[in-house]
């Protein structure tokens, strides 16, 4: 009786009796990254920018934390107290009436309302 050698029919090269070195398995991960692809180039550029921004923000953050230790300088304030210009009592007496007249003169417009008439009368 002839002995039938075992052979995996699904995988022709998967012969347990074959001692020759098996070829490297072909997997999707094994593909080389095509650097010429514009999508990849953009991805790399964006990634680089993100990393640079991250590093910059870290550096700035450290510097700002250091600066917080400095005693803050108060905001400069005007040396003169603002004058309450609305109060007429502070104006010298001789000018008070003149200022009052000036302010009142804005009300001297002619008080003549334009007459409202019916122009359809007689039509």
């Amino acid at each position: 009786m002839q002995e039938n050698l075992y052979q995996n029919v699904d995988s022709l090269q998967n012969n347990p009796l074959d001692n020759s070195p098996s070829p490297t398995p072909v997997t999707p991960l094994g593909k080389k990254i095509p650097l010429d692809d514009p999508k990849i180039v953009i991805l790399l550029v964006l990634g680089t920018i993100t990393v640079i921004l991250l590093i910059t923000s870290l550096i700035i953050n450290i510097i700002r934390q250091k600066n917080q230790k400095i005693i803050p300088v108060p905001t400069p304030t005007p040396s003169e107290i603002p004058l309450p210009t609305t109060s007429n009592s502070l104006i010298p007496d001789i000018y008070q009436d003149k200022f009052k007249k000036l302010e009142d003169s804005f009300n001297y417009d002619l008080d003549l309302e334009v007459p409202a008439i019916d122009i359809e009368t007689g039509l």
Partner: protein
Amino acid sequence: MVKLVYTYALGAYIERCGGSSPLSGTFLLQLFMWLLLFLLLAKPVFAQDSTDNYTKYRTDYLYQRDLYQKNYFDYLNKKDIYTQYRTLVSEKDKIDATKTVLFSRNLMLKSYFMALRVGLDKYKVMNSAETEKNQIEIKKWETWLDEQNLIIPNFNNNSDIQTWSRDFKKFYVEIQRTIYSGLAQSQINLRLQIQNDIESLANNIKNDPKNQNYSNDWFASYPVKSDLITKSLQTAAQVCRRAQRGNTFSNFYPEVRIEINKTNNYLKSLITDLKSVAIKLNN
């Protein structure tokens, strides 16, 4: 025989012979004293100033306005009656009421124009050429309204009234333009007067012995603000000169008011700054 003799009755002859008695020195002195007293006490009659005239014309306008409103309601009433009954009597009443209301409307507009023209006299010196132009235009409309009131009483039918009313409607576009231009001119003149007063007061403060160059900053910034005021007022005047197209009045007055309000703000800012300078004089 009786002889007729011409005799003077009741002593008339005596009177004739007596003649007039000469005036005594005391009487003349008294007369002179009374005359002097009259001249001293009598209030001299000066030409009325523009403010008084304006008040008078304004009062007249308000009276004419009330009269027009009364006549207008009467006209509406007569018109309704005619629409309801269509009789010859009601038609005649309606024609009469229409004539009356049109007549009183013209009187009201004329009195308004008169008040406006006299009101423009108040600050006329600030811009006499432009103000004079406005006043001439207003006077022209006063004359036109007078002429129309000579025509209106002669209308006898609806057709005449309708023709006249259609013509008036066209003229009313120009009438409105003249009214609003006059009002704008009066406001422009007042602002120029205020600016002039501010400048005068600033010069007084500048020459005050207590002033230690406090007003230098004010005078340095004044030309800029003065230019802004002039520009706003010029824009307001230009808006008034815009020609009207068609039979509908395009009201430019709100645009004028915007420019006038801008001017008010600039002027008030100048006054506030000047007040600050004046307050420093007290320190």
